[in-house]
C-alpha cells in the first residue's frame, strides 16, 4: 500500500491531466484518424498507392535529402555554434540573430528566394550553368532548401552545450599531452554529442515535413524531384483521400521509427555521460 506523500511541488495531478489531454486531443487523435482513414480505404488501393514507383521514388528523395541536409547541418551548424560561443568578434550579435531567420520566414518565401539565387538564370545559378551544374529543379536544390530551414535547430541546441564545456577540461587534456585535434575528438565532441544529436533529430524531422520551400526549387518532376508531402497534396487534389492518408501513414511510420532510433541512441549516450545514479 503506497502511502501518499505530499509532494514538494504541488499540482502534479492537474498538470499531468492537462498533458494527457493536450497530447491526446492535438497530437494523438489526428494521428489516429490518419490510421483509421487508411484502414477504411480499400486495401488494394492502399498497396497500389503506397508501393507505386512514383511513391517509392518520393520516399527515397524525401528521407534521403532530409538525412543529407540534417548531416550537413550537423557539421556546419556545429562550426557556427563553435564560432559564436568561443570567439568574440564585432558583429557576433548580428550573426547570432541571423541564425533564427529561417525560423521566422514563411517557408514559401525561402523557396522563392532560393529559386531566385539558384535557378539557371538566377544570381548564382547563371555562373554554375556553364559548368553543367544545375541546382534548382534537381535534388541538390532540395537538399539546399532543407539545409536552410534545419540550420537553426542544430545551432541552437549545440550552443548551450558548447558553452558548458569547461575550459578546464581542455586545459587538463593539454597538460596531459593531448594535441588540439585529439582534445576535440576525445573531449569536446563526446561532451556535446547528445546536444548535437538532438539538433540533428530536430533538423531531420523538420526537413521530412517541409513542403513550402521545397516545391519552388524542386521542379517537381515525378520519379525525380517529387517529395512525398507533394505527392500527398497531388493525391488530395485528385480527391483520392484514401491514397493521401495511406502515404501520410507511411511517412508517419518511417519518421517514427527513425526518431525513436535516434532518441534511443541519445538516451544511451546520455546515460554514459551522467551515470546511472539519479
Amino acid at each position, binding site marked *: 500500500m503506497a502511502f501518499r506523500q505530499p509532494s514538494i511541488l504541488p499540482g502534479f495531478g492537474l498538470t499531468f491531466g492537462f498533458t494527457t489531454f493536450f497530447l491526446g486531443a492535438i497530437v494523438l487523435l489526428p494521428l489516429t484518424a490518419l490510421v483509421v482513414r487508411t484502414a477504411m480505404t480499400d486495401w488494394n488501393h492502399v498497396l497500389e498507392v503506397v508501393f507505386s514507383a512514383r511513391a517509392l521514388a518520393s520516399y527515397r528523395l524525401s528521407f534521403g535529402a532530409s538525412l543529407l541536409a540534417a548531416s550537413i547541418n550537423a557539421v556546419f551548424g556545429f562550426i557556427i555554434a563553435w564560432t559564436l560561443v568561443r570567439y568574440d568578434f564585432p558583429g557576433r550579435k548580428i550573426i547570432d540573430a541571423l541564425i533564427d531567420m529561417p525560423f521566422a520566414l514563411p517557408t514559401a518565401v525561402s523557396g522563392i528566394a532560393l529559386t531566385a539565387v539558384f535557378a539557371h538564370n538566377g544570381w548564382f545559378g547563371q555562373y554554375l550553368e556553364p559548368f553543367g551544374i544545375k541546382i534548382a529543379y534537381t535534388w541538390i536544390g532540395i537538399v539546399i532548401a532543407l539545409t536552410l530551414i534545419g540550420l537553426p535547430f542544430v545551432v541552437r541546441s549545440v550552443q548551450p552545450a558548447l558553452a558548458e564545456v*569547461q575550459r*578546464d*577540461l581542455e*586545459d*587538463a*587534456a*593539454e*597538460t*596531459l*599531452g*593531448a*594535441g588540439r585535434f*585529439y582534445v576535440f575528438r*576525445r*573531449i569536446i565532441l*563526446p*561532451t556535446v554529442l547528445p546536444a548535437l544529436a538532438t539538433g540533428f533529430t530536430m533538423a531531420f524531422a523538420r526537413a521530412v515535413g517541409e513542403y513550402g520551400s521545397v516545391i519552388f526549387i524542386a521542379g517537381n518532376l515525378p520519379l525525380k524531384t517529387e517529395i512525398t508531402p507533394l505527392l500527398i497534396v497531388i493525391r488530395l487534389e485528385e480527391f483520392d483521400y484514401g491514397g493521401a492518408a495511406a502515404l501520410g501513414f507511411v511517412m508517419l511510420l518511417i519518421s517514427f521509427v527513425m526518431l525513436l532510433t535516434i532518441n534511443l541512441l541519445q538516451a544511451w549516450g546520455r546515460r*554514459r*555521460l*551522467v*551515470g*546511472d*545514479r539519479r
Partner: protein
Amino acid sequence: MSITLDQVTKRYQGSPVVNDVSLNVGDGEFYVLLGPSGSGKSTLLRSIAGLTGVDHGRISLHGRDVTHVSARDRGVGLVFQNYALFRHMSVADNIEFALRVRRMKAADRRERRKELLRLVALEGMDDRLPTQLSGGQQQRVAVARALAHKPEVLLLDEPFGALDAKIREELRRTIRQVQRELGITTVLVTHDQEEAFALADRIGVMNLGRLLESDKPDELYARPATRFVATFLGAANLLLARQTSEGIRFGTTPVNARAVERVDTGREHEVVAVLRPEEVELAPTREQLQAGYLAQGQVEEIVFTGAIERMRVRLQSGAEEAQLAGPAGDSGTALIEVTRTQPEQRAFPLAPGHPVFIGVRRIHVLPTPLSSFSVFAAEEADAKKLSQHPLLAGLAAGMKTRVSVRVDATLDTVRAPGSKPDLAGVAVIAAGPESARQVQVLLQRGAGEVLVLPETVVAPQRILIHWVDETPRRATLAVSASLLRHVPAEAVYVGILPEGASEAARPQGVRTLLDARSEAQAVHGLEMRTELRVGDVVEQLAGQLAESPDQLLILGVSNTEVLTERFNRLFTASPGWPMLIVYRSA
C-alpha cells in the same frame, strides 16, 4: 632547482596580475602559494603549467627553459579545483588518458593504472564513471590522472576548494603522502592558511600579483616582514611604537617584553609592531603581569571556540601608552584581539566588562619604514580633503594604518636642532608651487619620508625609483619595497649617468643598476626592473614622468637643499605626479 621563475610578469589589459615574481622551488619540495583571491597565484600556477603565456620573464623546469614551450610538452601534472575529469570516460580511461596520448601499450597502461589507483587508495574503482564517485574520490582520480605520465612537477590549483572539511583533511593527508612517496616537486595554490601550514615545506605569500615573502611556515609566522603576511597568516594586532636608542616604546611606556626584535637603530622613528593574540597576557593587576606591561583595558567580547578562548579587549589607557596601527576610532581607543588557552582561562576567569591589565610576551617589529601617515595643510578643510585623497586612502586601507591630520599654518618654522622630532610616519602634503620648500621644512623637522600628492592622480602603474647619491640608497629601497607591496604597479629603477660620462664610466653604471636590483631582491624581496639613462638627472626624470600620468616617483636624497635648488621643476610641473621623497643624511 626544479622550478625557477625569473621576473615573471603577466598583464591583463595593461595592469599586472603577476608582477615580477622570481622564485626557486627545490627538488622534491612541497611549495604552497598562498594568497587571497585575485592575488595572481592561480595565474602564476597556470603560467608554470604553460596554459597562460607570460609577458616578461623566464620559466625553467629542471634547468630547461620552457618559457615558450606549450603546455603539452612541459611534462607537468595539473589538478584543478573542480576536478576537470572527463565525464564520458571511466576512471580507468581518465587515468590512462596521458598514456594513451603517448601510445603506450595496453598492458603497460593497465599496470601503471593499477599502481596509481593503489597510490590514491581507489583500488577496484576502474570501471566507475566520475559521476558515480564522491567529490573526494573524484579529486583522487584527478591526482592519479595528473601523475600518470610521471611528470617532473605536480601543480595543484586549490584542489580542496570544493570539498567539505572532513574529506579535505583526508585528501590532504593522501596528497602529502603521495608527494613524499614519489618525491615529486609540488606547487599547491590555496587561500587557506591552515592548509598551507599543514602541507608546505615552504610557503610563498602573494598579494596584488607580487610574491611578498617566501619562507618556512614557522619562520613566516614568527617573523613576517610585511603587514600583509603578518595579518594574513593567522591573526595579528598591529601596533604603532617608537624605535629609540633605548629600545621600543609604546607612547611613553618602554616595552621590556622578552624577545623584542631589533631593527636597525639610528634615528628615532615610528615602527609597526606585530602582537599575536596568543602573545598577549591578561592579569587582574599590573603586579601580577609576568610579561611587559602594555596598557589597561576592558574585556569587550568573548567567544568560546573549544580549545581556546577568543576575546577582544578595548584599550583604555588611551593613545599615551599604546596606539593601534589601524584606522583609529573617534574615541581614540581601540580593540586588540587576545586568545587564551584553557589553563589561562581557569587561572583568571573573565567576562565581558571586566577591567584587565594587558601584558606583552613577545612582539615582532616589522622592518617596514612606512608606519603611518600624517597629513599637513594650512587649513583644516584642506587637510581633511587631502586625507581623503584616493591614493592616500587606498594606501592607508591597504596598509591597515592610520592617517592623522595636522594643521600647520605656514610650514615655515624649522625646529631648532636637537629638539625632539614631533613627526610620526610619512608626512603628506598637497602639490603646489611651494611644495619643494615645504618638503624641505618637513624633512628638517625630522620626517624621513614625505609624500607629495597632486590634486588628481591616476592610479600608478609604474613606480620610478631613483636616488641622488648612495647615502639614501638603502632607505629608498626599503621604502620602495614597502610601498610596492600595497600598489599593483611595476617598479623600475632609473639609473642616470651624467652627460658626457666617459665610456669607462658606463660599465660602472650598469654595475650600479645590477647591484641595486640584487640588493632590492636580496634584502627587501622586491623585484624591480632597471633602466640606464644618460644626461641631466632632473631632465631625465622629468622626461620619463612626462611619458604618462600613471607613474609615481620615489626619490632618495641625502641633502634637503637639492630639492629647492635642483628638483623644484618636478614639484611645480602641471598636472604633476605623486612623489615620495626619502631623506637620510650621511
